[in-house]
């Protein structure tokens, strides 16, 4: 029996979101979400960000619009989402059915000394996403709910926003390739085929 008050563990959440990942495409926000996605298994269909804070959700939108038959999953942190907060409004207007945004919310800036983010003071990202117009917007506190979000992400029947309340634990880093050209080229080759190398 899951204790609803216990905070989720970030790697358990990400491993479940990426269970039987099929051909889902993943954008990972900078910092710990990048390391979490990489710990679940480095993959050509991952685009893990090492910078460009605030980019993750909008990269997911551009990718989802370009690849309407594929499912796109953005996994990022609360600080990164807050920096790109306007993108929730832009995404709500565009409503791509194949885009899920999962925010790992430890209420901290993890890479810089665990300082509190706005969510520690009650700013409700799931409420903001809902108010922007993303109708499927949930706060997730149990692994059963994580599984529901995982299934929604793979179904692609509407834009989904999920705020995962996670433990502010510091874990061993698992690093993907750092070079942007390698990450870009292998992703495009995987999604578009060898033709991507020539265009």
């Amino acid at each position: 029996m899951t204790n609803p008050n216990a905070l989720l563990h970030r790697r358990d959440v990400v491993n479940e979101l990426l269970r039987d990942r099929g051909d889902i495409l993943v954008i990972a926000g900078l910092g710990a979400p990048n390391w979490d996605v990489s710990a679940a298994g480095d993959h050509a269909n991952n685009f893990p960000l090492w910078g460009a804070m605030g980019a993750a959700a909008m990269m997911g939108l551009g990718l989802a619009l370009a690849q309407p038959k594929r499912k796109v999953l953005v996994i990022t942190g609360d600080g990164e989402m807050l920096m790109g907060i306007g993108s929730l409004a832009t995404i709500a207007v565009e409503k791509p059915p194949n885009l899920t945004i999962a925010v790992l919310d430890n209420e901290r800036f993890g890479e810089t000394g665990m300082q509190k983010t706005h969510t520690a003071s009650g700013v409700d990202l799931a409420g903001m996403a809902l108010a922007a117009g993303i109708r499927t917007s949930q706060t997730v506190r149990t692994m059963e709910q994580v599984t529901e979000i995982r299934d929604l992400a793979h179904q692609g029947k509407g834009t989904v926003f999920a705020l995962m309340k996670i433990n502010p634990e510091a874990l061993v880093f698992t690093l993907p390739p750092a070079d942007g050209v390698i990450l870009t080229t292998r992703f495009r080759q995987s999604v578009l085929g060898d033709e991507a190398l020539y265009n």
Partner: protein
Amino acid sequence: MAETTAKPNPASPPLPSWPDDVYRILKEAGVKQVAMVPDAGHSRLIRAFDADPETRLVTLTTEEEGVAMLAGAWLGGQRGVLLLQSSGVGNCINMLSLPAICHMPLLMLVTMRGDWGEFNPWQIPMGQGTQASLEAMGVIVTRADTPDDVAPTVWGAANLAFNTWRPAAVLIGQRVLGAKNFKELARK
């Protein structure tokens, strides 16, 4: 009673054709996603894309969203363009790391303020800093200061961006767009 019937002002220049030429060039370049924060200078181009079922026109809350969106589009195999005013270039600076470090194409069409004939002093700092800011972040910058020069300059930048996988910006000067003067509007 004032005359209310609108009459064409004989002193008005003919409608510029460069936005139509730019639209055609961007279509030929294969642009499928158009990200923008509107500017009056882009209004005709925005209307053309809005009426085009083959392109997705996305309004942003801030210009750096468009840099990230078009990076995602490129990962998915689509080309795009970012339409913005020079003030919005300042919002993009750190996000320009993304196309720079990943060698992704990014085509930015920037309508200038704080430039030729500007009346609003608040537009000057960013307008005068636009080209230097872009170049500091590795964006290849070209300028068009006459209507006839806009289309060839956009053609050149589009080819640079999409054939060499780099960020490239075209600055469309205020001399092309015409300078506003709110002081005149305030008197009317």
